[in-house]
């Protein structure tokens, strides 16, 4: 099977379809892609047909996210909305020892079998596993994407902190919609937005959310961690956040930047553990310092305003992993997953749902495998591991989450 390359020609003619995971972030990213000359569109199809297509086109023992992402794409291709000779697909590729690095290949195989072998698939990865002449991320575009991740993380975090307490139903959603719209507009206007401008936005966003009238009552806080796709995607986790909200909890979900930093950090750690090129590592150290510096800005802005709980700083999470798991565990969500749970528990968010696709290999170790130790060191930690897959029933999942909530309300 020859790889169909995304050529420079195609940049002009083809629409790039992007699967969803985090709506706010991904909307901005698509805007940025458009600003940089790509025709891009975010897929929003999330009907049951997506799962059906996934089952049909992907080996059923493959992890659920692969099934959903590929299912969503094929479902979109067959919707009749697109000229199939004028579309390309974009998919992320982390490139670790987890089978997730193979999603792109499974997608290509599925396309081939369904007769769409001619559709180019673009790999979006940190390590540049594949190259496409028509798809290159320039430095300004990369910075813009970073902006989008920080802003998206901030918006979702504030949304989570306001939603359960808003007095006027819809206030929070309104603010999110406003800022999403505004920021997408801004991203679509300029190829590059300076850091200072982004910082001004942070302040404005935080102030605006702080103005939402909120109840003072105390709610149970529930952290959601896990495999990145099922953690974030409502399609992947049976609308977990909505369920928790409905059960009267405040949801705390660590942001996407943490995962990005984790990938950067691992490249540095890999050299420490096993050796390798010094030049590459120097570059990654630069990136690491740049990103953690910017992350600090968001945290400081939240602290300064004072109404909200700031998220945790990546270098602190790095330290938190010590005593639990080595930083050498770098497949899947790796040590970060353990660190995120510990970080949540330390911040007083002792109730945690650890989500993973059924049979997720890294989570045997970093998720389920670490719960015992975390509980030993933090007796108040109240953690439930929930598996997701096309056959798992919501009743079973909800019953276990309710047990966790019952324990939470007891203390």
């Amino acid at each position: 099977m020859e790889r169909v390359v995304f050529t420079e020609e195609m940049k002009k003619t083809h629409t790039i379809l992007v699967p969803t995971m985090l709506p706010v972030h991904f909307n901005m990213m698509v805007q940025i892609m458009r600003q940089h000359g790509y025709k891009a569109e975010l897929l929003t199809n999330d009907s049951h047909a997506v799962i059906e297509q996934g089952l049909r086109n992907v080996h059923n023992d493959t992890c659920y996210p692969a099934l959903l992402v590929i299912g969503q794409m094929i479902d979109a291709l067959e919707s009749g909305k697109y000229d199939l000779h004028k579309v390309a697909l974009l998919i992320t590729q982390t490139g670790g020892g987890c089978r997730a690095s193979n999603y792109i290949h499974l997608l290509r195989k599925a396309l081939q079998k369904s007769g769409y072998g001619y559709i180019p698939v673009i790999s979006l990865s940190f390590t540049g596993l594949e190259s496409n002449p028509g798809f290159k991320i320039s430095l300004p575009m990369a910075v813009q994407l970073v902006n989008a991740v920080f802003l998206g993380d901030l918006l979702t975090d504030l949304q989570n902190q306001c939603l359960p307490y808003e007095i006027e139903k819809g206030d929070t959603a309104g603010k999110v919609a406003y800022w999403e719209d505004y920021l997408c507009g801004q991203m679509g206007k300029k190829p590059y937005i300076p850091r200072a401008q982004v910082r001004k936005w942070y302040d404005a966003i935080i102030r605006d959310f702080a103005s939402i009238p909120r109840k003072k009552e105390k709610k149970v806080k529930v952290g959601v961690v896990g495999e990145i796709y099922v953690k974030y995607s409502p399609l992947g986790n049976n609308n977990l956040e909505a369920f928790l909200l409905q059960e009267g909890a405040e949801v705390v979900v660590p942001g996407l930047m943490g995962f990005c930093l984790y990938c950067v950090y691992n490249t540095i750690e890999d050299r420490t553990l096993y050796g390798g090129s010094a030049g590459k590592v120097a570059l990654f150290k630069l990136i690491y310092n740049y990103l953690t510096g910017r992350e600090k800005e968001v945290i400081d802005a939240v602290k300064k305003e004072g109404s909200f709980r700031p998220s945790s700083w990546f270098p602190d999470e790095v330290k938190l992993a010590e005593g639990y798991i080595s930083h050498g565990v770098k497949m899947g969500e790796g040590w970060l997953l353990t660190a995120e749970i510990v970080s949540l528990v330390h911040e007083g968010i002792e109730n945690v749902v650890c989500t993973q696709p059924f049979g997720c290999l890294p989570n045997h170790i970093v998720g389920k495998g670490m719960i015992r130790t975390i509980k030993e060191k933090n007796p108040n930690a109240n953690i439930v591991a929930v598996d997701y897959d096309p056959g798992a029933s919501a009743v079973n999942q909800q019953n276990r989450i309710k047990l966790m909530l019952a324990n939470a309300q007891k203390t």
Partner: protein
Amino acid sequence: MRLNIGIDIGSTTVKVVVMEGEKILFKRYERHFSQVRQKTGELLRAARETVGDNPFRVALSGSAGFGLSKAAGIEFIQEVYATSKAVPFFDPDIDVIIELGGEDAKILFLTGGVEERMNGTCAGGTGAFIDQMASLLDVTPGELDQLAAKHEKLYPIASRCGVFAKSDIEPLLNQGARKEDLAASIFQAVVDQTITGLAQGRELKGKIAFLGGPLFFFKGLQERFVETLHLSPENALFPELGQFSVAIGTAFYAGETCPETEMDDLLDRIDKATGGVSATNYLKPLFANEEDYRAFAARHARATVEEREIENYSGNAYLGIDCGSTTTKVVLIAEDDKILYKYYSSNHGNPVSIIREQLIRIRRLCGDRITLCSGVVTGYGEDLIRNAFQVDDGIVETMAHFRAARHFEPDVDFILDIGGQDIKCFKVRNNSIDSIMLNEACSSGCGSFIETFAKSMGYEIADFARRGLFSQYPVDLGSRCTVFMNSSVKQAQKDGASVADISAGLSLSVVKNAIYKVIRAHSPDELGRHIVVQGGTFLNDAVLRSFEREIGRDVIRPNIAGLMGAFGAALYGKGKRQKESGILSLEELEHFTHTAKSVTCKGCANHCPLTVNTFSDGKRFISGNKCEKPLGIQNAEKLPDMYEYKLDLIRGLKSTEGPRGKIGLPLGLNMIENLPFWHAFLSSLGFEVVVSPISTRQTYNLGRYTIPSDTVCYPAKLIHGHIEWLLQQGIDTIFYPCLTYNFDEHKGDNHYNCPVVAYYPETLHANIGALKNVRFLYPYFGVHRPKDFIRHATRFFMDEFPGITRKDVRVAAGAAYAAYAQSRQLVRDKGAEMIRYARSHGKKIAVLCGRPYHIDPEINHGINRLLTSLGMVVISEDCVSDLVEPVKVDVLNQWTYHARLYNAAKYVTQNADMELIQLVSFGCGIDAITTDEVRAILESAGKLYTQLKIDEISNLGAVRIRLRSLLGAVAERETANAARGMANA
């Protein structure tokens, strides 16, 4: 009077208690057959007499109660939490509660760190599991309990989930194992599951209360728990009201928090409660209308074998017997292939007596008019039946089915057979079987699942199926394993789906399982043009229709769909042109007796449970064996077996006392292949290396209590036992490094280990408490970069063991790399030698592929020996993976062990005398990727692909059929090729 009512709606039963303080005034426990709302109303009405017009407080609990609580506005309390509320009622000094429900299992630790746990989604049910197993044995749950009381021995039965257990039990049944022993083994499986799945390393000690329906009703289960946990009588509490624990706790909770209400109001709310928003997905109805159905029925009526009256026939007749996993089929055909006699029945766990009755009938019907020329038996019970009745011949199931399908459609190119336990499908090319696909242990049980389910809902299968035909809203139940389907059904019922909708939904699920999980088809064209479907399950029109729907093509279903195996066997016998059958005569049959006794084989360390069948003529038949040893056959020629050779290499590693004392290595996962490396390395540094012994079942039992994830692969689970063994020996330094990267063999894009292999030491450290008391060393090393390895190892070992010098490490590393290279070379050389042996002796070669740790006999369950007993020389993937240029595959080829598979597949395609068999551990996510690729490589060159999924299930019944089918297909293909060669010449 202050009254509190607790309602507990579980997956199968409703429980209602009315309490005044600690006193129970009223209690009822009944099955709800999915009619949750009606049953609850009914029980409350019965309680009315007790309650009268008094106000009361009420709350509701249970896994199936959530929907009703919302719709009727009744306070809901999670059931585990409710159980904890009930503790003071039973005994305030309880330390641990074990509660088993219809489909959930829970453990509550009340002292020393309160903790509550529920089974994961994969573990399936317990009460429902026992019900299912009882129906498999054809007894009521009550009778199952009585049987268990008379057991003599226990069989190891996979306890992870019902589907697995079933795969273990069915073959045992067919081998004639005693039901008494099986009943007790089923209870033991529940106990093991509770301990491994739930306790997960936390010790079960102190006063333990056992609650919930199954633990109340089944004395056998109680006994298994007491014995397994070594409980003294005062520490094992089986409260009389154990099955009401959740309801009682719920009543207490209601008393504390709920507002007062009255009976009229409550009943009114319940009666008016309707499902609310439905979370269930619906599918299109199977038939638009009656007419649609009639056309469908008429079309299928065309595929019919005619029958003729046996009374009016004289001449030759041919008998076919299909002794399947759950059913027995018998067909007698005449010279013109018409059916003289047919029989189809559930084998009720005792196929021998059923077949005896049938043979007597047939012998009588034949009289002197009809000559029984031949008898051929196929199916799970083939060996047993053949031996019992001196049936002339046996034929592999797949071959029998092919034979029969060809009778209906000479051009058949695809056969799908869904039986009680198996899904089998085969493609046919050039008149021979081209590829065989069978379901793996996980998705098995499909046909019988519908039946068991029908029964559990109070219906006969035929009636249940008929109802599904005209369902307007078939529910979408997913296509994973049947345990998941159970939960999906539960959800659908919650949302108000009718029996008809569920019946139709189950049919669709069975079909989807077959198409997407077993066949892995993308389009109908991939299946074929002339499709024959068969097996008892296809007699269900709903299943047939669902199948045609899903593939968008009409298929042929013979009217004897359920008898095809037997029919094919009869045709095969007829083809043999034999004069007279040697089957027992009428007189012999009438005096025929059969006893089965279970014994443990003492032939080797495996201690296989055997069943010894003794027949009236004194002849014995032994089943359950994995090798020829207990049969007393002196295997004159032991064929070369790389798996054995590799084990011998491990056994041959000798350790000497060292100045630095002992260091332990667990013999599992990558340590199995890397042992020469670390052994040499540590020996050179002056350690006495202690390696845990090669795994047995005991190894698993030793470590099963600390496994945190019940869906991890069996090889990973086993290593817990190896660590425990080392701890038991008093080894105070254990070494097991984390290896993100494996050795680079330059075969692919990268050379990773899989996440589980790479980081499992972290899991061991975090979950085996006792490791904290010893020195457990699990450094991160990169053996793929020798220079960096030496640098890092120097730092590590000099820090850990003062006195070790740089030079020591350098020398040790030199020895390690040399020993590793030598061990790899030995394997390659020996492999080449084995291939030469096979060729000079005219033997076929099986390239048994997997991971290096699949050589562990507890992981492969002796499949290598089974292969040599079938006449094949066994080599492993790494014997040949260096003999071809690296294969370019369509996936990211980034794991060292997996890259070998692709190369081995390539090599097999270049060698006519080699067949590839891939071992896949259940739960191996990465093999979801490799299996498709290996299959593609093989099939592109016209080779057969065989995948064997393995787990803790130790029964090789299905594997044997699988391998014999493979050999049968290969032989048939060779004959066809030879014939073509002759024609061309």
